[in-house]
């Protein structure tokens, strides 16, 4: 007798997404044009990568508020090494990702070794990383980037490179979370850290690794953004972490840990992107869009709550 309910709580988001797409394509036939769909995908790709990254952290029961600042910092770091004739493009890209990973590692150590609440540690990182980005860039955009580096912001065969990167990140992360020991351990640590410890898991290492992966993915997003904007912008990325967390949570990832996955997170990011795009096509002003978006974040979780009971 609980079949339809269970089904709805599992696939409710997917149904909502399909209905939304159907309604939009009827109301605005332009919506389904390939060009527009590519725009949607391009718009969600940064948020998608960040959301997949923060899913690792949320699964362990933590949170990462530093993502937006890390995007700015890693973009600036990459840009500093990406002037024409400096280095091959892979060097600034790798440095950006490494910088993100290092900051993530610092977050993780603060949480595990320092035993400070994730909210506080990453709040501190949010401020400090923004400051570091401003210091490194002197407060000005870092411009004059090599064509090789700008490739990340371009298209290949009509598909934006960043969309391909998102697909790869999501695919690999899905495999990591569902098929590897590390993935399983993330769920165990978030589901009951004490039980995980009593099962011989090295809880601190697993947590630290989650923050590191999340930071590295923020680094990847920062590099892509710099390439897309053709500058390393120390003031970019403000509040990106909130959109990323929102996407993961809309997708069914629990803030208390142990529940969630890449599929849901990706769907959450897509839903947010389609709603933005749809409201644009319908001519809704961007101020109103923010109100709608806020309502949807709370509404999705509220529905999830009701179904879960």
């Amino acid at each position, binding site marked *: 007798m609980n079949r339809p309910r269970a089904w709805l709580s599992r696939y409710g988001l997917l149904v909502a997404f399909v209905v939304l797409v159907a309604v939009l394509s009827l109301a605005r036939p332009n919506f389904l044009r390939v060009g527009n769909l590519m725009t949607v995908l391009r718009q969600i790709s940064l948020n998608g990568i960040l959301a997949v990254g923060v899913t690792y952290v949320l699964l362990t029961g933590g949170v990462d508020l530093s993502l937006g600042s890390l995007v700015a910092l890693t973009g600036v770091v990459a840009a500093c090494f990406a002037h024409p004739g400096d280095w091959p493009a892979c060097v600034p890209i790798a440095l950006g990702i490494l910088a993100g990973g290092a900051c993530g590692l610092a977050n993780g150590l603060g949480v595990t070794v320092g035993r400070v609440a994730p909210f506080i540690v990453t709040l501190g990182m949010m401020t400090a990383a923004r400051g570091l980005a401003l210091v490194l860039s002197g407060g000005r955009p870092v411009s004059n980037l090599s064509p090789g580096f700008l490739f990340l912001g371009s298209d290949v065969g009509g598909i934006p490179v960043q969309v391909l990167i998102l697909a790869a990140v999501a695919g690999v992360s899905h495999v990591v979370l569902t098929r590897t020991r590390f993935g*399983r351990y993330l769920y165990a640590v978030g*589901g009951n850290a004490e039980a995980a410890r009593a099962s011989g898991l090295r809880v601190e290492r697993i947590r630290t690794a989650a923050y590191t992966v999340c930071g590295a993915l923020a680094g990847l997003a920062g590099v892509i953004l710099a390439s897309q904007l053709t500058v390393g912008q120390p003031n970019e990325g403000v509040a990106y972490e909130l959109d990323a967390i929102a996407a993961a949570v809309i997708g069914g990832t629990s803030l208390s840990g142990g529940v969630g996955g890449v599929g849901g997170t990706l769907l959450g990011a897509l839903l947010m992107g389609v709603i933005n795009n749809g409201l644009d096509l319908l001519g809704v002003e961007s101020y109103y869009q923010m109100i709608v978006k806020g309502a949807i974040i709370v509404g999705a979780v509220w529905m999830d709550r009701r179904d879960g009971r």
Partner: protein
Amino acid sequence: MAGPVLLRACGLSKSYPGVRALSDVTLEIRAGQVHALVGENGAGKSTLARVLSGMVSPEAGAIEFRGRPVRFRHPHEALRLGISMIHQELLLFPELSAAENILMGREPGRGPWIDRARRDAEAAALLGRLGVSIPPGRPVRDLSVAERQMVEIARALAHRAEVLFMDEPTSALSAREAETLFGVIGELRRAGVAVVYVSHKLEEIYRLADVLTVLRDGRVVGTYPPNEVPPDRLIALMVGREPVAAGGRAAAAPGEVVLEVIGLGRRGRFREVSFRVRRGGILGLAGLMGAGRTELLEALFGLVPADAGEIRVRGRSVRIAGPPDALRLGIALVGEDRRRTGLVPPMAVAHNITLAGLRRWCRGPFVDRRAETRAAEEQIRDLGIRARPGQPVATLSGGNQQKVVLARALLTGPEILLLDEPTRGIDVGAKAEIHDLIRRLAGTGKAVILASSELPEVMSLSDRLLVMREGAVCAELDPRRATPEDVMRHAVPA
């Protein structure tokens, strides 16, 4: 002496995903009576108590209070009528004082102001009615479990409770504290309160109950005066089959010593513990709560490592700084609190079972899911776990959850198995199955250390028995010669 019917349930039904928790339950609760609900875990006792106290709404059926039909949309509504529940996990505010907890929501005073002096006086009066002396101003976090329970009961009295539900109230109490509680229950009955008492412990039921209702698989088997159903028959009614009698255990064939502990201690937890366990042996640890048994087992498993003495595994001196060390040495622990340290509630049964030994089904970083599922299914079959591998473990009954935790420990391939209260809070049938399993494991050459507060359990299973008191071993007994009275004499501090 039975008073009027206070609470009547007619045809109550309630399902959870995959389980019919209650089915057509009809029941009367009378004033001034202790009404015991008995049955195996998963029989529906707790669900019935939750439905009748307004915490859960039934799908079908009606509830009458003093002859008038009532529908509870919220526990508050039941509370206002005088129906209170004393929870298995006590729900108090640890940072607030006893008095603040007791009168939470009905503080005396005027307007927004609380009259603190009157509040403390009223709380003290209520505690006095229960015959306990707890300073009303003391923060609840500084109180013992038993004292907290008294605070909960006093809170129920402050709400003028006429029907009081108690779900396993003695599970965390020492024998002496339980005595105090029984006295309080007697007082409540004399004052005309109806007490609905949920418990697994038959001695308590025979001692307290005026009437008992047996539940099985969510149905009422029957309601009886306790003197009409002797224990054997009661157990048969609960399980629907005759239980196997527990026998004693002969001393193990002298196998090789696998674990030797010399002068082991941890400051403030236990001290100077020495013993040996042989292959195939079962060493029992008896003692009161807080005697240091759990602390000793946690040190052997590395959860809270020892800071004095020596541990030898198969003759070699070893250092156990954490659970990974212990697991590598072939030591596994089934902890005393499966909800806190055992289960990962949102995870599937199969994944819970394989969590500790996951390495065995991995190729590089990848889990071989087919091999993993096969191993989990084998355990589910071997231990008789009534669950599907993909089901979330949180939806299982206590006995099945305990078997999941046991299966996990077994899949690490241990030679030394540490069991801490392995049958706490589970039903008679599952208990017998776990006892059988422990004997079988010892029979296959594993060394077992079994800590249990249930004397019949440790005495029938172990071949040697250590009694602990205040952090130290105070006696070693032969369980076949010693009587429960002998054990208690050693266990109780002079």
